[in-house]
């Protein structure tokens, strides 16, 4: 190695959007990439159609989520439109027993892991904090505290090491999260212990209203090597590149070489949440430019060029998406709020006298309404 008395970043922009590893151009043309190609050499058109299907359903369920929120069925929704490729591509690269720690925006990841329609709306509706058992999907409850889950993945990966397992733990987070101590501490821990973990940063350019340049003055993928972690900066709207990168990363982690980091450069097409007004902070041209890079039409163009996309397939995907979103709507409209006493459930795993006393009082208070209820 040459002497390193100074380390100066060779580029100052954190948003150089064309210097990315990619396998599909925005027009869907397959281009070679020496590093990524080997990781998807097995991918046939059927597999690609599967990726398309997942992304199309993810988008539809996202649209449905926004609609349900607008109709007053959900308190809030965090749209993921435009980010389907990074979510689906990376999650599809994981094994079923790899344990994933997502943020609140990882709809595509939840979908790939087998979440049911109700799982997408009951938490946003405020019925419960989480619906599925994390151990059944090998998927933690979506994290709201920015960046906290990166440490959970690092710790889980340390646990895998101690069990002699060959799984990988994965942390998903946004560009804003890379400013948090927890994400940086997770890089220190996983690197120091060579834990089998993958960091997936969906750089969607915005943390609510703050552009990525407020969080980083150098491409985010460039940060990981400083922690001793190899990284890849890929086109997050190219599902093939995301899949290939994640296969590289999980293989690296699984084979005992320690953590790996992926920065997927993408764009959040909608608002941060349904409470946000992005017209206050970003311009229409930027959004329009990103619309040209849409991950779903990109893969469709690629499949069409190979005669692997016809009306029958499109109709089939459409009908699957209809069915899924009808399930979401039904779950929202049919949701039955749990009985009031359950608000005191599961605070502790073992009996706790303080909660027991409050439960007793609350139950007796509630029983005062029993007559009223009976009369209704």
């Amino acid at each position, binding site marked *: 190695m040459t002497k390193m008395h100074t380390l100066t970043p060779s580029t100052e922009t954190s948003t150089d959007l064309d210097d990315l590893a990619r396998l599909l151009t925005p027009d869907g043309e397959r281009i070679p990439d020496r590093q990524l190609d080997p990781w998807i050499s097995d991918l046939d058109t059927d597999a690609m159609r599967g990726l398309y299907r997942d992304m199309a359903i993810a988008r539809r369920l996202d649209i449905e989520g926004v609609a349900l929120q607008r109709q007053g069925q959900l308190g809030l929704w965090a749209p993921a439109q435009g980010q389907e490729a990074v979510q689906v591509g990376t999650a599809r690269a994981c094994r079923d027993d790899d344990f994933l720690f997502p943020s609140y925006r990882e709809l595509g990841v939840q979908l790939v892991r087998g979440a049911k329609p109700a799982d997408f709306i009951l938490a946003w509706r405020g019925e419960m904090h989480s619906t599925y058992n994390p151990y059944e999907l090998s998927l933690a409850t979506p994290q709201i505290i920015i960046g906290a889950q990166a*440490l959970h993945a690092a710790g889980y990966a340390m646990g895998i090491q*101690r069990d002699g397992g060959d799984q990988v733990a994965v942390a998903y987070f946004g560009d804003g999260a890379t400013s948090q101590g927890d994400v940086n501490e997770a890089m220190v821990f996983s690197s120091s212990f060579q834990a089998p973990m993958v960091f997936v940063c969906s750089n969607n350019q915005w943390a609510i209203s703050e552009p990525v340049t407020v969080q980083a003055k150098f491409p985010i993928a460039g940060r990981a090597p400083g922690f001793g972690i190899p990284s890849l900066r890929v086109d997050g709207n190219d599902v093939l590149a995301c899949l290939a990168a994640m296969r590289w990363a999980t293989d690296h982690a699984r084979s005992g070489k320690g953590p790996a980091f992926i920065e997927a450069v993408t764009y959040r097409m909608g608002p941060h949440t349904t409470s946000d007004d992005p017209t206050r902070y970003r311009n229409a041209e930027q959004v329009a430019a990103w619309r040209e890079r849409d991950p779903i039409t990109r893969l469709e163009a690629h499949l069409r060029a190979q005669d692997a996309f016809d009306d029958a397939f499109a109709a089939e995907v459409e009908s699957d998406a209809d069915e899924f979103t009808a399930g979401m709507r039904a779950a929202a409209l049919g949701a039955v709020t749990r009985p009031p006493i359950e608000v005191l459930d599961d605070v*502790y795993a073992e009996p*706790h006298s303080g909660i027991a006393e409050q439960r007793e009082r609350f139950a007796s208070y509630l029983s005062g309404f029993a007559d009223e209820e009976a009369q209704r």
Partner: protein
Amino acid sequence: MSELLTMGKALNAGLRRALADDDKVIVMGEDIGRLGGVFRITDGLIDEFGAPRIIDTPLAESGIMGTAVGLAFRGFRPVVEIQFDGFVYPAFDQIVCQVAKLHYRTRGNVTMPITVRIPWAGGVGAAEHHSESPEAYFVHTSGLRVVAVSNPQDAYMMLRQAIACDDPVVFFEPKRLYHTKDEVDLGADIADAAPMGLARVVRAGTDVTLLAYGAQVATALDAATAADDEGTSIEVIDLRSISPVDYPTVTASVRKTGRVVVTHEAAREAGVGAELIASITEKCFHYLEAAPERVTGHDIPYPPAKLEKHHLPDLDRILDAVDRVLERPNSLSGVES
């Protein structure tokens, strides 16, 4: 197998026993490996159990707590050492938002059997940030259990109970007691021990109930001895657990004595004493002969070491409060409150 041990050695023995009993137990923290921790509580564990189970972590408290969460997710039972009380704050977010809430958030599917050991409180002439009493922050957080030990036998047993508990436990170790010695029954089984949630009447009395925990228990006992010389009979209760509090034991005593004094080193405002007195007032209002009293640290940042004796409740301040609940004139009579 009773042995005369310091509290530090009793804690070390408790850790060793927990590690031997359950291979899912792992110990993690700063300097806890080769050094054995700055207080040597983890002394020798790395030789016996090896580095995979005794983890010298990077110097990052949120990192330690957050990775403990991930390890618990994976089925381990992490025992985390926070080097000093004042350094738990960087880990506070992970404790409050993650450790305390994951069981509730996942509707019981995920348990967080994490023990957070904190060398705690003042009286040892330490530097700034090394003498804090942050217990009220944790007591206020649902989902956590909070205990404080006052003697070597409890240190040995309650630490094992905390580690075996499926809930997260914040475990306070008064550092000024690390070197106090007492008999410890090393053969004891946790199944036979008093549950860690139970309070203990450490001295019976009839006139005043004096509630304390941690190192204050010894001060409370000294006060009771001094009061006895003047003909006042004080019942001293070591709370042991400050979340949940063992109210049956506390209220039985208050109903008998009709008078209560609470003492702790932590500041007064919204402290554990305030909670105890509010609950006692609700539960025993008609039994109270006088307004309950708190003897606490002042509402100040922890003072410099040379002044800490003016901050920590001592025997005389406790006796002053005892006089007030007995409605006897004393040195502070006449002070408007």
